[in-house]
């Protein structure tokens, strides 16, 4: 598929726009900081890209991707924190983290190769819960719910990065991962993954080894998730408590991939922007805008009667609960999943069609829809 120069221009412009956000923010008073939540978006994009390899390309639903992020964060924390004897540098710790993540991916992938689709999803969910509990309970090593801190900040060529430096570093890492994911997608391995998703039996007949390919997908997914976990830990200077890496995070990652488009690298980036943006920018900003109204006391209800009581009841409830946008978080995730599955299972930016489907190297929307439909609606 030839990439047109127009496409390259558009991509470069998008990258440039994202890259100058911190600079613009410094000189133009926007009223709030967008670069902080944007760094979250980058981390979740990496997590989503990892999950996309397993769930989008290979078609294996993973509901425990947060566990790999937790493993990443803790391996990074233990190998860098000053209270442990290892004290590696940022980049070597990052390498170790990704290797440990891949190993964890193998450990989960190997025994579960033969488990059917929906059961596999539940096994990964159980794995996520076990990892979380083990991290809490083995407190002599992991410091339990306190988390491990302080951790060194990211460095580049010996300089410690903070603020904008971290923003650009994380953005650069996302770009590297995106490039890698797109290369992988079109490589022999990637096409093998996609063929397993479409029809495992047929791909086996074509000489692909589903076991090997699935293990590799697990390891890649886990490795990228571990990278995301390590980057977050480094940014926050703490591994955070194990409870932070719960089912919710796994579902947020799944929402990112599904809203963006299963198997679509561009889609994952958009999905991360939309879902994390909704979570850390829109809901937070709305809370700030609405906030300030104190909790309404329920005591006034005692004196009211009839219709007046009903109105006051609803008003108190709305003021205390409904007017707080962060209370709507789960509803946003849930609606995103249900509505996407019913109305647009291929996602907002569907995966491109394969070469055969879209020979003109165009967006290949028709081919992509066909792929998505095949995947989700056989």
């Amino acid at each position, binding site marked *: 598929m030839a990439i047109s120069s127009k496409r390259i221009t558009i991509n470069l412009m998008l990258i440039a726009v994202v890259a100058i956000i911190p600079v613009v923010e410094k000189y133009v008073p926007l009223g709030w900081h967008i670069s902080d939540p944007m760094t979250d978006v980058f981390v979740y994009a990496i997590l989503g890209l990892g999950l996309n390899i397993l769930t989008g390309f290979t078609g294996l639903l993973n509901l425990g991707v947060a566990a790999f992020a937790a493993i990443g964060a803790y391996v990074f924390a233990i190998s860098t924190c000053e209270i442990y004897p290892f004290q590696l540098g940022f980049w070597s710790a990052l390498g170790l983290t990704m290797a440990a993540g891949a190993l964890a991916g193998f450990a989960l992938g190997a025994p579960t190769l033969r488990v059917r689709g*929906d059961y596999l999803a539940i096994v990964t969910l159980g794995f996520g819960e076990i990892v979380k509990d083990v991290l809490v309970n083995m407190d002599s*090593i992991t410091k339990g719910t306190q988390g491990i801190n302080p951790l060194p900040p990211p460095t580049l060529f010996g300089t410690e990065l903070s603020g904008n430096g971290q923003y650009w570093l994380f953005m650069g890492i996302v770009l590297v991962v995106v490039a890698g994911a797109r290369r992988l997608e079109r490589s022999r391995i990637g096409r093998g993954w996609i063929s397993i998703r479409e029809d495992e*039996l047929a791909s086996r007949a074509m000489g692909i080894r589903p076991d090997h390919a699935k293990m590799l997908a697990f390891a890649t997914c886990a490795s990228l998730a571990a990278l995301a976990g390590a980057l977050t830990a480094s940014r926050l200077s703490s591994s955070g408590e194990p409870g932070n890496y719960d089912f919710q995070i796994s579902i947020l990652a799944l929402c990112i991939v599904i809203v963006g488009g299963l198997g679509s690298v561009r889609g994952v980036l958009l999905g991360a922007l939309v879902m994390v943006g909704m979570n850390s920018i829109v809901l937070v900003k709305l809370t700030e805008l609405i906030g300030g109204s104190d*909790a309404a006391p329920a005591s006034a209800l005692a004196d009211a009667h009839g219709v007046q009581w009903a109105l006051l*009841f609803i008003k108190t409830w709305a003021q205390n*609960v409904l007017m707080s946008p962060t209370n709507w*978080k789960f509803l946003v*995730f849930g609606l995103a999943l*249900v509505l996407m599955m019913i109305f647009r299972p291929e996602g907002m930016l569907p995966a491109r069609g394969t070469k055969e489907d879209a020979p003109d190297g165009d967006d290949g929307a028709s081919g992509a829809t066909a792929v998505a439909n095949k995947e989700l609606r056989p």
Partner: protein
Amino acid sequence: MQRTVAAAEFLAASALSQADAVGAFARDGLLSSQEVFTQQLVTGLSNGMIIALIAIGYTMVYGIIELINFAHGDLCMLGAYFALTVVGALGVDHWVGAGGLMGLVMVLVGTAAFCGSLNWSINRLAYRPLRKASKLSLLVSAIGASFILVNLGLFWGGLPMDVFANGTSSAAPKAFPALVSAAPAAQIGDVIYSRTDLLVLCVTLPLMVALTYLVRFTKLGKAMRAVAQNPTGASLMGIDVERVIGATFFIGGSLGGFATVVYSLYNQTVSFQMGYRMGMDAFIAAVLGGIGNLPGAVLGGILIGVIRSMSDGYLEARWTNTVVFGILILILVFRPSGLLGAKLREKV
């Protein structure tokens, strides 16, 4: 070099500390007496019967449309909130004597009807449009539905009512008033059989018998078995498949409704996040027994209840979830058909 030695020492010390901890569990376990064992067994059996009732809801739905109804646990959570609202609005906890018993029955039946209707609606809105989609899309939709229900629970918990602590913090766990007296029903040796234990038995056993009758001997039950076996064939025989699926969701949901009231009475607290644990326990029970198999769900529920309470008593409560999820993974990997389930072969 020095750092390598330090690192090796650290790793060895960590390994030893974990081994020590395991040894400590084993020693404490051996010291426990017969009474402690029986008491844990009673608790485990009671919880197990409740889990079994919820597990039936999972297994019925899986049997008929091969969906892991992820929202089932959160449905039960909303049922608990419904029951709490009814209790709070009518003051059922102050009714005494025969009135108290009437109130309890009313809360049970009302919650069952509520959960049944809600489950029916969820099927109608979130699952029925996906009847022709793949199993994974259906599962994702179910996870979405579960999150929506969790959020509704969060809203519900903020109602300005006394039972919800006037909605001061909608996310906080709420105390569920005791509708059954705390006095023990019987005491043999040091083992106490509480009235809630008795209640669990009085609610769950008749329901299981009734369900068995319904599935085995009624026309609807026959239709349900037919749809489970072959939906297309069933529809050719004049069975309204969608109606049967709807009825299955209603029945499964209402069993969950009964179970959640008993669960709340037994554990005396409800929170908007309890659905996840209830749902996982019940789902693991259904898988352990063989998903799609009704006696299997009951057996699995009892086993999970007992394993949980034994792990709480003899290992350490903080490891209980790990044990239960470990069992789930082992079963799914090595014997996905469960204890009583027939061997399944995946269709190509």
